[in-house]
């Protein structure tokens, strides 16, 4: 079983739709959760960062973490064509000297104008 599972998509939505992206994980020690946006042929860009459970909102983006279900989500409101990209979830457990990060395989999102 993979440490992190993510539906690869592709996910195609009309402009203005609410997008829901999800990941599940198996390691209950994970405390730090991240979402990255990666445009084609570019490096991943850190979009959202959360610690432990709960919600975090930043503009049109909301990250949710449910540690009891080992499930994280990223919601995008009022989606725009510029949101078309691959979204990677990532997570880790805290260690003082070094942290290893575990990534989902990415969900490709296409927002149609």
């Amino acid at each position, binding site marked *: 079983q993979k440490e992190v599972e993510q539906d*690869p998509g592709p996910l195609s939505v009309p402009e203005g739709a609410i997008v829901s992206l999800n990941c599940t994980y198996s390691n209950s020690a994970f*405390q*730090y959760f*991240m979402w*990255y946006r990666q445009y084609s*042929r*570019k*490096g*991943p*860009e*850190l979009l959202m*960062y959360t*610690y432990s459970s709960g919600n975090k909102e930043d503009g049109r983006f909301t990250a949710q973490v449910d540690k009891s279900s080992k499930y994280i989500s990223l919601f995008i409101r009022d989606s725009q064509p510029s949101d078309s990209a691959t979204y*990677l979830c*990532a997570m*880790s457990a*805290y260690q003082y*000297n*070094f*942290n*290893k*990060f575990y*990534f*989902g*395989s*990415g969900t490709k999102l296409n927002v149609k104008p």
Partner: protein
Amino acid sequence: SQTIHQWPATLVQPVGSPLSLECTVEGTSNPNLYWYRQAAGRGLQLLFYSVGIGQISSEVPQNLSASRPQDRQFILSSKKLLLSDSGFYLCAWRETSGRTNEQFFGPGTRLTVL
């Protein structure tokens, strides 16, 4: 503010040739440094990580090696490239001075081995 640089941006190399990819980080001290490879349509594979100068750990046995000659410099090398070494190589860093645990990526190097 912190920035991360990688070069070259793209590289086309023949099989059997050597490789050297460089990554530098600015604006931080003693970061954790990472090399990943991303194959087309696939996730990120951790290749090497480093917690300090001269300290390299390998995740996957392969045709590549890494070195950290300076605190904020990370180099990925190969003596003889294979076709299977083609991919998108990403350098990343993580700050170690606080309790945050964010990892930041460079722009990547696209390597094609022919």
